[in-house]
């Protein structure tokens, strides 16, 4: 490394200064690079190093040597030119950033709402339970005068295909005589079909179809008589048999629930 020859005489004074500078600006943690004692050797080594590398790694000579890196790769186009003031584009840049942030916030809130809703609704009725909530009944399977019982939402459901005689009888009943006054029309959509829940309103037993004194149902537990419209006529029950929500999809299909 003796290729560079320098005359220590002329440059010795400044060299002393730079040597001190050099030492004092070594970063804490960087190794002391020079342990050689000879000043001349040190000088030549330093000169050579400065030839090969602008500044030895781990040290710098002054804070003015710090070069701010060029961030052009990351700059927005409006601020790429260092000879143009950044004030002019400041509003549009801010507007863009805030719009992006605002849009992300909206999307984020929506996503959060979706996640939370999913977790909360997972606590509501499950699919198998919901599947049981409706029942579809083919009406052609039920002959006239017959009452069929179905299991629906854990309770018995009575679907009765009424004869003309039963219909006219029920419609002619004087409501004033009833414990729970309801006209037949209020309890049926199509008078030919009566749909009621088969749970006695007294204490919850299942009435027997086509029994009792009124051509309807009879509860064997405590002797409640219901008519062909499911209304209480005699016995301890206080209310008529409950009529659930139902609708006719077509003439042959009944959906309850």
């Amino acid at each position: 490394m003796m290729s560079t020859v320098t005359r220590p005489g002329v440059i010795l004074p400044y060299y002393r200064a730079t040597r001190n500078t050099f030492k004092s600006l070594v970063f804490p943690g960087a190794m002391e690079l020079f342990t050689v004692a000879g000043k001349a050797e040190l000088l030549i080594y330093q000169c050579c190093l400065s030839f090969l590398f602008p500044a030895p790694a781990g040290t710098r000579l002054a804070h003015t040597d710090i070069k701010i890196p060029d961030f052009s790769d990351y700059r927005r186009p409006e601020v790429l030119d260092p000879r143009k003031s950044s004030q002019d584009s400041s509003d549009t840049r801010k507007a863009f950033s805030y719009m992006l942030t605002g849009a992300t916030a909206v999307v984020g809130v929506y996503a959060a709402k979706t996640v939370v809703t999913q977790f909360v609704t997972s606590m509501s009725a499950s699919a198998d339970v919901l599947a049981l909530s409706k029942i579809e009944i083919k009406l052609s399977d039920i002959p006239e005068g017959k009452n069929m019982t179905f299991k629906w939402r854990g309770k018995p459901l009575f679907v009765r295909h009424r004869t003309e005689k039963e219909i006219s009888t029920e419609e002619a009943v004087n409501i004033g005589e009833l414990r729970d006054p309801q006209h037949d029309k209020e309890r049926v959509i199509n008078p030919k079909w009566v749909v009621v829940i088969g749970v006695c309103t007294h204490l919850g037993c299942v009435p027997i179809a086509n029994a009792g004194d009124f051509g309807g149902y009879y509860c064997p537990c405590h002797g409640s008589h219901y008519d062909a419209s499911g209304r209480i006529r005699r016995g301890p029950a206080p209310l008529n048999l409950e009529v659930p929500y139902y609708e006719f999809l077509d003439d042959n299909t009944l959906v309850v629930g």
Partner: protein
Amino acid sequence: HSFPVLLSLRRGQASVSYAQSLLGAPETQLTALDNGLRVASEDTGHATCTVGLWIGAGSRYENERNNGTGFFLEHMAFKGTKKHTQTALEQQVESMGAHLSAYTSREHTAYYMKTLAKDLPKAVELLSEVVQSCSLNEAEIEQQRGVVLRELEEVESNLQEVCLDLLHATAYQGTPLGQSVMGPSSTASVIKSGLNLTRQDLVEYINIHYKAPRMVLAAAGGVNHEELVGLAKSHMSGVSFEYEGDVVPVLSPCRFTGSDIRMRDDALPLAHVAIAVEGASASSPDIVPLMVANAVIGSYDLTYGGGKHLSSRLARIAVEDKLCHSFQAFSSSYSDTGLLGIYFVSDKHHIDDMMHWSQNAWMNLCTTVTESDVARGRNALKASLVGQLNGTTPICDEIGRHVLNYGRRVPLAEWNARIDAVTPSVLRDVCSKYIYDKCPAVVGVGPIEQLTDYNRIRSAMYWLRF
């Protein structure tokens, strides 16, 4: 025997009112020579005077290749001219009992002499020689390299300078304003790496920048303007006013970048932190409200005796919670841009709090500043503007800088009128324009682990409540 004083009818009354004294201040006279050189002076009647040349050249006119040339040239200026060797020059100056100094900043360079008023002719002659026919001999250049490098090393320990230099470097990154006045060490280095200065560079610099239209011969003290103009004509008529190839160096705007730079060194005892936004240029009408705003925030250091009763809110908080060792609100303005900021020195456990309260002070200025604060700021500013003109040298410096910046000396009465026009709503509007929701430049030097993250600093530049 103090009775007569107590009984005096005029006790407590100044003999001249403030308004009268403003209007009665001596006028600054301005003349231009044929080659464009301007001569400005104020005759204050002192027995001494300061006379100097203010040149519109500085580190902003340099590029990456020759950054530090102006500073080096300042070192070479007093090392001999074509007519006087260094010893002869020194002997001339010393025998007058004069002081010869110079400074270089980002946009201005100044060579000035403080001397007796009767020595004005000699002073102008020596100054004109220094600027026009500096000898720049090689041996001296080599020697000055060491001096400059030593000065660079010395400045490293002045952490305020380091901090504010780094602030410019990051705020104006990629532009000439980001360069430090002193230049990198490679410029002054003796190692011929192609980056270091040669005599040719210095000569070129003088050729390009030391032109008459960009120079002002300013003087203050017991000087007669006519005499000064005559001296200028005889010594400085030869200063060139033409550019080679008609290439006039024109300053392009410098882009400000909101950014930060952190020089962490846990071995240092105190952290030096500065935060700044882009402020107003020297000639902008907003400069006065911003100066009032800075006066409202004020400054503080441990030697202040006011304690919890200081008028600046930030200072009160700093004292009560021992947040900092010192802080100051500063404003640096250049010809077309500026920096408006707060610089503080604190120990490593209070940096975050101090930053929070500094930005709080800014937000307060933008939103809820009160009439009493603004009145206090106005008065403080007026007092400081007048107070800093204590001597022929500050007055001369102001003349030189004003003529370079504004083309004339702005009189105190005009400053006063502009300051009086600042009301709380004006202050709020101007501060919001420059500070509210803007990206700041932040610098931290020292044990700055606690220095707030940039994103959080940026978020504190606006208030959601507003």
